[in-house]
């Protein structure tokens, strides 16, 4: 098994500017409007004057157990051993929407053709690309790996991507501990007031119930 790749996100540094989401759309040329491989959501808490907002930039988490892969009838979805990236082979997708229900994060998107598309951690450009791409580790060794567009364009340095081991080095201890207990490949930092524990907690909660 190759080194596993993932994202790192720090809500304290996210300004909610949407640069990541737009950069993603541009790179992958996804349908205008209703298809968002990455999206930024703002969650509010409390009422004025005790009012706080947290911005969360969300995409496919490349889950370790990938519930989308488990339900997909055709095996179109694959959690790659070589780099941990979850890819979709659109030649096999029938557009049943089952993965959309199974995903806890709303990552699978269905464009005008009704087939599934989602973040491929910039293994390649465009919907469905990357399913047969060489491992991200190999791409990097060959100097050919694309830096994920969202990370590239992030204004506040809130997003990062890379081998999970490297990301953990830069994360706070709390974030690293939380990551160890959860099954996604996203490290959510919680250095300040804002933490997105639920992104991990929700998986725990549903599995316990």
């Amino acid at each position: 098994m190759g080194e596993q790749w993932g994202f790192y996100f720090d809500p304290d540094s996210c300004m909610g500017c949407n640069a990541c989401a737009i950069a993603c759309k541009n790179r992958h040329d996804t349908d205008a409007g209703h298809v968002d491989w990455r999206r930024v959501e703002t969650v509010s808490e409390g009422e004025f004057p005790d009012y706080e907002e947290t911005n969360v930039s969300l995409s496919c988490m490349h889950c370790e157990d990938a519930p989308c892969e488990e339900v997909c009838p055709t095996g179109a979805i694959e959690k790659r051993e070589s780099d941990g990236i979850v890819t979709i082979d659109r030649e096999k997708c029938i557009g049943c929407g089952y993965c959309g229900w199974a995903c806890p994060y709303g990552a699978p998107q269905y464009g005008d053709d009704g087939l599934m598309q989602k973040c491929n951690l910039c293994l390649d450009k465009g919907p469905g690309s990357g399913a047969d791409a060489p491992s991200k580790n190999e791409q990097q060794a060959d100097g050919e790996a694309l830096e994920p567009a969202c990370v590239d364009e992030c204004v506040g340095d809130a997003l990062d991507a890379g081998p999970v081991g490297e990301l953990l080095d830069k994360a706070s201890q709390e974030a690293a501990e939380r990551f160890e207990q959860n099954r996604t490949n996203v490290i959510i930092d919680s250095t300040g007031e804002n933490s997105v524990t639920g992104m991990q907690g929700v998986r725990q909660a549903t599995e316990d119930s």
Partner: protein
Amino acid sequence: MSDIATGSDLLWIARGHWEIFIATYLFLGGLSGGAYLTSVVSSELFRPRARGPDEIFACEETSRWGAIVGVLAIAVGGVALLSHLGAPLRALTFPVLFSNFGSWLVIGTWFIVLFALFVTIEAFWLLFGEEHAGSEGLSYVPRWIVARIDDALPLPEGWSIVAALDWLADRLRPTGRARRAVHAVGSVAAVGVIVYTALLLTDVSVVPLWDRQYLPIVFLMSGPSTGISAALLGTVASGGGLSRTNHLFCLADDALIAVETVTLVGLLVALSSGGPAAEQSYELLLSGAYFPHFAVGVLALGLVVPFGLSMTMTGLVRFTDVEHRWGSAFTGGFALKYVLVLAGGFLLRYALLFGAVKQPLGVP
């Protein structure tokens, strides 16, 4: 997500990947399996005990209607499912393409294929063959249609599709034990279809409404209940509304309705304190956007009213002789009950899809 009250510090996840076609498909899948079971029960249990020509007629009509409704429902359900897909033609290559046998969509597809085979052959055996030539009964409509096609086609003298089908049916129809064995395997496939439509949903662990404990029981009751209703609606239309067969099936349906209602109440109680997404579903179904569909359509009109109507009629049949004086009122009453159960069964699937809410993410 506009119909969900956005609570603070929670990030709600979009839903709604399945539309009305999938609700239709889930409904027709359960109904089809249930109608086949009704047909088999009528043939195997009721027909051998039937006394007098009227009872025999009612049993046979029920068997035929069950099989015919089963074929129609699974066919229309299949088309409804395909029409929802992004790549329906690709899905037709499922024997090669569907490789993930851990997915309920794949397991269910094979159940449906197996079941479709059994229900079609059953309908064929019940409609064609020497003994059916010249028989009376509304359920012979498919046979009548083939005869009309016969008339319309310029076939050579002495040729007839009906005669050919009769000949074939008599050659293929097993009798005695073999027929029972076919019924047993077909029934397993029917139950498979009914239950799978629930497991397809409960396998999604992030939607509390699709509860693993309650939903399979609800579907296991609702499938046969709608199947009985569709088949017996046919029997009532054929003139068997006052038969013992109809009374017995109607009572069996009441038992299913009772268990289904209790299970649904259990589900609602569990939802009412099951965390934010469960509570949102609870609100949507009992006071929010889907109140008319669920609280009124499913609970009141689809379960309580038909149950009450049936109990009242059963009581009157048992303890008075008004049934014979007001025959057409009773016939209408049974028909109304079955129509209500069918409408409730559809609305149940509709409300379960549209009232589904995903666990939100916590952002404290």
